[in-house]
């Protein structure tokens, strides 16, 4: 069996080099076709009828007028009479027609009678949610009451983050065609290899009958794993329309209303410490909701998990609102915000520099040495010593500057992945696997690993992904993709190369196990002159093609990949205390992620995550109206996201060191999307002298905190 381990850092020709995305030009020029761009011949357009009520029972539904309309090919009821609707936007019926205009006209012609039921759509005031609150059992460790009593300082505050949505630029949906029991499926998905099986279950057909293809996708962030009702219903519309392909992508309002949320997090946190800053006790009463399913407790206290005495209470709140889906580091940004805010307020109470408080307590974290080093590195980059002032003691005038800290942790080991490497006699190379590239650079990373392994330039590698006919590779969730696909690709390429060595060795009188592939040559180790060019070597295959598999088994990663990432982010903000407007000066991200295959796309992952954190910290929230039960800002106008002028300077420092490199590859999707909100919130508290307890830090909340008003 070949030695699959990664080549030593100083011997790498491709891995570790800053490499632009292979599909960058295609994407920037519009040549790349996303599933939502596809218009196959005979395409039908579908439109959804959704519920205007947040809680209601469907009494009757009459689709007869819609069915009779010219151009309508099929109508399907998705919520039959008797169905209880639990949120506004629930799918009631769907229509396929020869044009979108006709489909929408037909939707308008469907008559539905509802029995409207009482709804609850807001969780900010826990006292007003009644029986929607579902408390979980209390968890206690040590003796928190005694510890608080003995503490030199106790800080107590209520902190909150609202529900936000994924807001994918390419909305959820698919083009799909179904004839008899065969399905051709072009979804926007994070799971090319599993979404086919998922839709097959809904359609009650064999998984093998579904062919999934997706070249590019426009954002998922954790919300695009299932095939969803609109997928299977579109397939059935297609079947009822003679097998013609049907396109259904959610419109913007529906996308923001029903395609997934990140749960809110509210918590009264009490934290106690000794004079020197050593944390001795934690108590939290938290509640959250991601929608009808409620919301679990964020993992608090976060990172500082070895606090000796704590008491945790959590209440899940079920709302008549669209349900939660995984959102880039599920529950971690919330946990980081709740924990780091409490630590920062504790530091203020102790009149201590929060950096010193974080450093003082690294020993009760899960990776003390890493965090100690990262805190120092981030502080150096943001010039903490020079720029930090005690809370509220900033220069006079209406612009106040502040610094803050956030912390993160994540797993990120590789998922199960199989890859096939094929070497043709003409020297061309293909790598095939049913992975997807969410835009993070997966395609490029696969090519880099194959090129490194085979000693070839990147341009010689043809990467084929996004098709369920290729070897199975896991869904992209939990930051597992890069570890999975790079390990399987490494093994497949290595196995194929071994076969090539077996053929080439005898022809140059060299033992196959003494050969290496480097700089486009197959040559003898230690005797570079003895060898063949890649092309000559492949010609020795005659008419035979080499095609070898490689597999990443998460239970036996053989050192190629692992989990456990740490990160520190520090924010530098300016706040106009007359208007409450927060401007980002700088966000510094120090991120450990093991062996980095492509520093350029890795940094770009961190940049994207930091931008998401700025949006969430300063402007992003789903606004629910209790009177109508509806989302009021299901648009890109009042669902506010940052633009280029709002994000400030982002400085990324990847912790690329020999020690980290030895750990193997660690995923990077989630880790950098965690600490930013906490860092920004703490920076604002530092700038203005008071805690703004609720995210996002919009002018109304900042001014309310400054003026001592109850929060809006």
């Amino acid at each position, binding site marked *: 069996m070949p030695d699959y381990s990664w080549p030593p850092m100083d011997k790498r020709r491709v891995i570790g080099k800053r490499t632009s995305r292979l599909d960058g030009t295609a994407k920037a020029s519009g040549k790349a076709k996303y599933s939502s761009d596809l218009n196959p011949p005979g395409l039908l357009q579908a439109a959804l009828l959704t519920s205007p009520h947040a809680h209601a029972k469907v009494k009757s539904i009459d689709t007869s007028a819609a069915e009779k309309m010219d151009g309508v090919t099929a109508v399907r009821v998705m919520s039959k009479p008797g169905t209880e609707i639990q949120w506004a936007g629930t799918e009631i019926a769907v229509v396929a027609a020869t044009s979108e*205009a006709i489909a*929408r*006209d037909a939707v308008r012609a469907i008559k539905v009678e509802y029995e409207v039921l009482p709804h609850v759509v807001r969780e900010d005031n826990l006292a007003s949610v009644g029986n929607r609150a579902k408390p979980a059992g209390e968890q206690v460790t040590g003796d928190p009451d005694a510890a608080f009593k003995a503490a030199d300082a106790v800080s107590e505050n209520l902190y909150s983050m609202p529900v936000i949505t994924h807001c994918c630029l390419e909305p959820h949906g698919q083009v799909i065609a179904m004839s008899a029991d065969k399905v051709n499926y072009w979804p926007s998905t994070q799971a090319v290899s599993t979404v086919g099986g998922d839709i097959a279950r809904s359609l009650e057909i064999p998984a093998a009958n579904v062919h999934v293809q997706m070249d590019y996708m426009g954002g998922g962030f954790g919300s695009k794993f299932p095939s969803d009702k609109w997928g299977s219903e579109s397939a059935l519309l297609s079947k009822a329309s003679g097998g013609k392909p049907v396109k259904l992508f959610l419109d913007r309002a529906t996308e923001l209303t029903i395609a997934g949320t990140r749960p809110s997090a509210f918590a009264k946190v009490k934290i106690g410490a000794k004079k020197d800053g050593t944390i001795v006790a934690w108590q939290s009463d938290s509640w959250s909701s991601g929608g009808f399913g409620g919301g679990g407790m964020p993992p608090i206290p976060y990172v500082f998990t070895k606090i000796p005495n704590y008491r945790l209470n959590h209440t899940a709140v079920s709302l008549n609102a669209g349900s939660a889906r995984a959102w880039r580091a599920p529950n971690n940004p919330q946990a980081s915000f709740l924990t780091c805010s409490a630590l920062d307020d504790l530091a203020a109470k102790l009149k201590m520099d929060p950096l010193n408080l974080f450093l003082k307590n690294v020993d009760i974290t899960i990776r003390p040495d890493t965090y100690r080093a990262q805190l120092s590195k981030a502080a150096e980059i943001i010039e903490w010593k020079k720029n930090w002032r005690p809370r509220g003691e900033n220069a006079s005038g209406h612009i106040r500057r502040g610094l803050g800290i956030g912390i993160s942790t994540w797993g990120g080991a590789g998922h199960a992945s199989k890859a096939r490497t094929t070497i043709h006699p003409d020297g061309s190379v293909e790598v095939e696997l049913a992975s997807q590239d969410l835009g993070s650079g997966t395609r490029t990373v696969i090519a880099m690993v194959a090129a490194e392994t085979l000693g070839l330039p990147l341009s010689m590698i043809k990467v084929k992904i996004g098709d369920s006919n290729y070897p199975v590779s896991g869904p992209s969730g939990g930051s597992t993709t890069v570890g999975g696909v790079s390990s399987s690709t490494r093994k497949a390429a290595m196995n194929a190369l071994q076969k090539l060595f077996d053929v080439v060795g005898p022809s140059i009188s060299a033992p196959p196990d003494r050969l290496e592939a480097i700089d486009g040559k197959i040559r003898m180790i230690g005797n570079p002159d003895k060898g063949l060019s890649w092309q000559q070597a492949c010609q020795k295959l005659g008419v035979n093609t080499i095609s070898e598999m490689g597999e990443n088994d998460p239970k036996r990663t053989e050192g190629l990949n692992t989990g456990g990432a740490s990160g520190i982010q520090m924010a530098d903000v300016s706040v106009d205390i*007359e*208007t*409450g*407007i927060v401007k980002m000066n700088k966000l510094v991200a120090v991120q450990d992620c093991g062996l980095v295959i492509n520093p350029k796309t890795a940094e770009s992952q961190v940049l994207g995550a930091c931008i998401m954190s700025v949006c969430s910290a*300063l*402007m992003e929230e789903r*606004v*629910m*109206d*209790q*009177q*109508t039960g*509806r989302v*009021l*800002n*299901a*648009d*890109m*106008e*009042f669902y*506010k*996201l*940052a*633009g*280029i*002028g*709002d994000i400030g300077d982002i400085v990324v420092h990847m912790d690329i060191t020999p020690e980290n490199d030895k750990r193997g590859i660690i995923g990077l999707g989630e880790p950098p999307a965690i600490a930013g909100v906490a860092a920004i919130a703490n920076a604002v508290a530092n700038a203005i002298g008071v805690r703004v307890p609720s995210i996002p830090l*919009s*002018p*109304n909340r900042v*001014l*309310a905190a400054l*003026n001592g*008003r109850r929060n*809006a």
Partner: protein
Amino acid sequence: MQNFEYANPKTIQEATALLGSSWSDASVLAGGTDLISMMKEELTTPKRVVNLKGIKDLGGIHKSGAGIRIGAVVTFDELTENPIVRSEYPSLAEAAHGVTSPQIRNMGTVGGDLCQRPRCWYFRTGNGLLAMKDGQSLVPNGQNQYHAIFSNGPAYFVSASSLGPALIALGARVKLVSASGAREVTADKFFVTPENENAREIALAPNEILTEVIIPSGKGVRNATYEVRQKEALDWPLATASVALTMKGGAVGSARIVLGHVGPIPYVASAAEKMLAGKIISESVAEEAGKAAVADAKPLSQNEYKVQLARVAVKRALLEASGKKA
């Protein structure tokens, strides 16, 4: 979007002949930045859409006596780049520049800015202009952080116009033309507080087209606009103030102070205007004027912060107009 007939007239006369007596007969299209989204949401479903961009007479910025005339289809970008506007009417150039984003500045027009519908999220989600339910507005008991601080109801939305406050402060008039003739109204009279669900928030009738804006000479009038807007990217102001000052020596002769995004129509801050007469603008005078401007504000449950924003906007606009940049 529902189907409609599309008309592409070449003259104002042809265009007015295509309009009807009710709003559902026809909508006029200029930049389309508001109309298209209204049509997509089916908040408006006109039988006919009349494109104004092909009408030459509706374009251009021209000198007119001592002042200027601005055609209705002049874009925000044309406005901000025009040398006369930049030098004599900086408050207008600033208001136009504050329209985010570059795409909207490139497409959106002067007439469209004045005629656009409110952005109130109850209105935009299909609850009607006044958001009435069971005889009561949804706004006072609802999510009203972006709503009016100057309103006695039942309209609690805020006028979305960016240029309106500056035009009122500069004493502009707007010209409205129908098949039966033309009329001019002063900019402050163009905005109307609707009293019922069927009323509109502007003085334009369904059979009229706003053809141009006429601004008197800005020579010697110190003017500025200050917008408080959370984001640099696409976003609406939370409060704005446009001021126009005629000077007597170093002191204010007369002042016009108009607030935007604080009420169903731009709010003329008369008390602050009176207070400023004869005063030399300083930080403290500007601060006092800001306080006077919002003295009658009646914030709703979630928008008390807007009172402060309006006050600060007035202060900063005055300091800017008087050359003491805030």
